[in-house]
C-alpha cells in the first residue's frame, strides 16, 4: 500500500477531468460524425452502459481488496503473461497521452499561438505536466479538485450564453443515421468513459471501502455523461449537422460564436485559459498513470527516475504523426474507436477470476 492517500472528492475530480477533457478537443465533432442529429443521445446510452461495465469491474476489484488492477492482472495471468499485459497497458496509456499532447499542441497553434512552433508549445505543456507529476498524485488530484468547479463553470457558461442559438428542432430526426449505427456507436462510445479504468490502477491510493470506490466511478461517469449530453446538444444546435463534423476544436468555435451585443463578444480568450489548464492537468494525469502502472509492473520503489525519460518519449510519440489531420485521426482512432478496449481487459480478468474461482477466499 502507498503511504500517499487521496480523498474521495479529489479522486472523483481526477477521474472527471480525465474523461471530460475530451470536450476541449475533438470529441463533439467525432460524436456528431457517429450520430448525426442523434449524437446527443450517444453519450447518454454509452454512459449508462459504461456505468454497468464499471459495476462489473468493481466485482473484480472486490474479489481482490486493496489490490490494483496491475497486481490483479499478475495474480490472474501469472508473472510472465501478467507483466506482458501490463506493459501493453503502459504502452496504450503512453501513446494515448502522447497523441493528446500533439492534439493539444495543434489546437493551441490553430487558435491562439498561431506563429509559435509546435515543438515549443509541446515543451510548454510537457514542462507543466512533468512538474506536476514530479510532485506526485497528491498535487495532481488536489489541483484537479480545485480546478474542477471552475472548469465546469466555464463549460456551462459557454453553453448558457449560446442561448440565442437554441433551436431544439436541430436535434431531430431523432434516430440520426439510423437504428443500427446508433446502437453500434453507443457500444463503441463507451470509449469516451474508458479513463474510469485509471481508478482501478490507482486503487492503492484510496484509503476507503469498496462502496466509495464504486461510487467514485459511477459519479464520475454520470457527471461526464450529463456534461457530454448537454454539450453535444448545444453544439448541434449552434453548428447544425453536417457542419458540426467540420470543426477541429468545437469548443473554440462555440466560444467564438458568442455574440451578446457590442460589449459581450470575442470572449474566447477567457475560456482558453480553462482549456489550457485542463490540458496541463490531463497530460499530467496521463503521464502519472503511465508511470505508476509501469512502476507497479516492474516493482520499482519510485517512478521519479523514469519521469524525464518518459517526458522525452511522450514528446517523440507526439511528433510521430506527419501532420495535424493524421494526428487527429490517430488520436480519435485510439481514443474513441478503440478506447473500449480499456473495459475489455478487466472484464476478461473478471471472467478468468470467475472461471478459476480466484479471489473468492479473499472476499470470504
Amino acid at each position, binding site marked *: 500500500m502507498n503511504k500517499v492517500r487521496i480523498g474521495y472528492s479529489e479522486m472523483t475530480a481526477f477521474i472527471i477531468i480525465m474523461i471530460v477533457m475530451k470536450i476541449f478537443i475533438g470529441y463533439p465533432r467525432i460524436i456528431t460524425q457517429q450520430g448525426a442529429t442523434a449524437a446527443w443521445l450517444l453519450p447518454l446510452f454509452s454512459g449508462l452502459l459504461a456505468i454497468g461495465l464499471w459495476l462489473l469491474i468493481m466485482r473484480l476489484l472486490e474479489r481482490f481488496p486493496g489490490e490494483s488492477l496491475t497486481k490483479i492482472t499478475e495474480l490472474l495471468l501469472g508473472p510472465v503473461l501478467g507483466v506482458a499485459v501490463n506493459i501493453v497497458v503502459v504502452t496504450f496509456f503512453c501513446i494515448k497521452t502522447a497523441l493528446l499532447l500533439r492534439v493539444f499542441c495543434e489546437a493551441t497553434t*490553430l487558435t491562439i499561438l498561431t506563429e509559435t512552433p509546435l515543438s515549443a508549445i509541446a*515543451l510548454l505543456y510537457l514542462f507543466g505536466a512533468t512538474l506536476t507529476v514530479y510532485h506526485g498524485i497528491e498535487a495532481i488530484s488536489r489541483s484537479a479538485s480545485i480546478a474542477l468547479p471552475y472548469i465546469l463553470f466555464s463549460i456551462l457558461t459557454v453553453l448558457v450564453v449560446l442561448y440565442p442559438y437554441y433551436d431544439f*428542432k436541430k436535434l*431531430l*430526426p*431523432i434516430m440520426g443515421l439510423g437504428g443500427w449505427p446508433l446502437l453500434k456507436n453507443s457500444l463503441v462510445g463507451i470509449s469516451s468513459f474508458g479513463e474510469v479504468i485509471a481508478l482501478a490502477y490507482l486503487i492503492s491510493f484510496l484509503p476507503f471501502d469498496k462502496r466509495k470506490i464504486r461510487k467514485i466511478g459511477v459519479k464520475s461517469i454520470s457527471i461526464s455523461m450529463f456534461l457530454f449530453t448537454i454539450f453535444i446538444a448545444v453544439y448541434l444546435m449552434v453548428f447544425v449537422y*453536417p*457542419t458540426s463534423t467540420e470543426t477541429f476544436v468545437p469548443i473554440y*468555435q462555440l466560444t*467564438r460564436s458568442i455574440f451578446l451585443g457590442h460589449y459581450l463578444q470575442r470572449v474566447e480568450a477567457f475560456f482558453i485559459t480553462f482549456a489550457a489548464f485542463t490540458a496541463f492537468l490531463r497530460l499530467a494525469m496521463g503521464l502519472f498513470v503511465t508511470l505508476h502502472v509501469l512502476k507497479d509492473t516492474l516493482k520499482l520503489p519510485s517512478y521519479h527516475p523514469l519521469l524525464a525519460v518518459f517526458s522525452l518519449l511522450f514528446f517523440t510519440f507526439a511528433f510521430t504523426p506527419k501532420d495535424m489531420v493524421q494526428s487527429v485521426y490517430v488520436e480519435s482512432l485510439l481514443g474513441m474507436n478503440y478506447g473500449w478496449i480499456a473495459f475489455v481487459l478487466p472484464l476478461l480478468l473478471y471472467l478468468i477470476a470467475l472461471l478459476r474461482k480466484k479471489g473468492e477466499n479473499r472476499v470470504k
Partner: protein
Amino acid sequence: MRREVILLVWISFCFLLLPGCWGSMETDQLGYVLVIGLDKGEENIIKVTFQLAIPEPIEGRQAEKGTEVVSVEAPSIFAAQELIDTFVSKRSTIIHNKAIVVSEDIAREGLSKYINPLVRSSDLRRTNYLLVTQGKAHDFIQENVNLIFERYPSRQLDIFMTSTYMTGLIPNADVHKFYEALNSPGRQPIAALVGVEKKKEETQKKEQQGEEDKEQQGDQDKKQQDRQNKEQEGEQQAQDKKKETKSEKEKVEEAMAYVPGEIPREGGNKIEIIGTAVFKDDRLVGFLNGKETRYYQMVTGGFGRGNFTFPDPDPVEGGSNIINLEIMKGRSPEIKVDPDQEKINVRLFLEGEILSIQSGENYEQGTLKKQLEDYVSNHITQEVMRLIRKTQDEYRSDIFGFGEFTRIDLLTWQDWVDYEWLRKYPRYEVSVETVFKVRRSGIMIRTAPIHRGGEGGVRNE
C-alpha cells in the same frame, strides 16, 4: 539549497518560454480591417475592398478620418490581403472585421466559393454580418467612411444591425447563419440588403432628361393630344379622384416597402441598410423590401418590434386617416408542416400599442378595439401570405426554414435528405393566421371628441 537551485533552473526555463509568442506584434504595427467588400474584378478574379481602421484617438477629429478604404484585385480574399500589405504600412489583420459586403454580381454568380475561406479562417469570425449590395461593394464601403452619428467606425454597423430587433427592416444575417442554411436540406440562406443613397439631383436629372426627350417628340402631336384631352376631360376628372384616394391608401400600405437607394430622404448617412437578399442555394435570386423583411421576420420569429402604419379600419375614414401602431412579438410563431397533406400552417402572435389614431375614433376599447385587432390581423395575414407565395412561386426558395419543421416527421437523417423538401416547398399549401391583441394605447385610454366650433358639430362620439 538543492531545492532552491532546482527552482531557479525551472523559473529560468519559464522565462525562456514566456517570450515565446513567436507571432507577437505591436498593436500599432497592425492594420485592423473593419469591413471587407467583394466585387468582380476587371484585371483579376475579384476586387477586394478593405475598410481599415486608423488606430489613433478619434476624439476631437473628423470621424471620416478614422478609416481608410483600399481596394485591390486578386484571385482570392487572402491574396488581396497580402497585396495590400505592399502599399499600406501596416500588417493587415481581419480579426476585428465586422462585415462582409458582397456585390449583386458576385451573389448572383454563387457565394459558396467565397464563403468557404471565410468559415475556414481562424482570423475571421462567423458572427461577421453578411451584406449584399445592389451596386458595387466598393461604392458602399467608400460611402461607409462618412460617419455622421457615430465616432467609432467599428460600432457603426453594430448599431445599424440592431435595427433587426428595433424596426425589423433588416434581417439578422451573418456568415454563420448563411453557411448553416447553405448546408441544411430544410432551409435556404439570406443576407441583409444594403446600398448607397441615390442622390436627388441624379434622379431629377434623369427625370428632366426624360421629359426633354418627350417634349421634342411630343411637339408635333401636341395639338392633336389637346383635342383628345378636352374630349375626355370629364371622364378623367372622375378617374383622377379615385386614383388620388387609392394612391394615398397605397402610400400608407407601401410605407417601408423600400430597398436601399429608394428611400425618399435628405441628410443622414450615405449608406442605407434595409431589406433582404434572397438566395436559392448559394445564388442570389431576388430581394425583399423593408416591409416584406418585417413580415419575413415575423414568420421566422426574429421580429422584435416595429412601428406600422395602417389606413383607418373605418371604410369612410380609411381613405384619409391612418392609425399608427407599435407591433411587438407576443410569442414565437407556431408553425406546423404536414408532409402527408403538403400543408404549412403558420400562426403569428403579435401584440400592439396604439401610437396614433388620426380619425379620433375610440379604438382603445370595446367593439372598436376588436375591430382594429381583426383589421390588423387580416392585414398582416394577407401580407404574410403574399410574401410566402412570392418565395414559393417567384424565388422557389424556403428562406423561412419551414423545412426544418419536417425533421420531426422523419426518423433518420437520410430520410430527411431523401424527402427533398426544397424541391417540394413551392407546391405546399400555406395558411396563415395572425393573433393580434392591442395591449396598450399609449398614455391615453380614449380620445375625447373634437368640437368643431364653426360647423357646430361633435365629430367623434
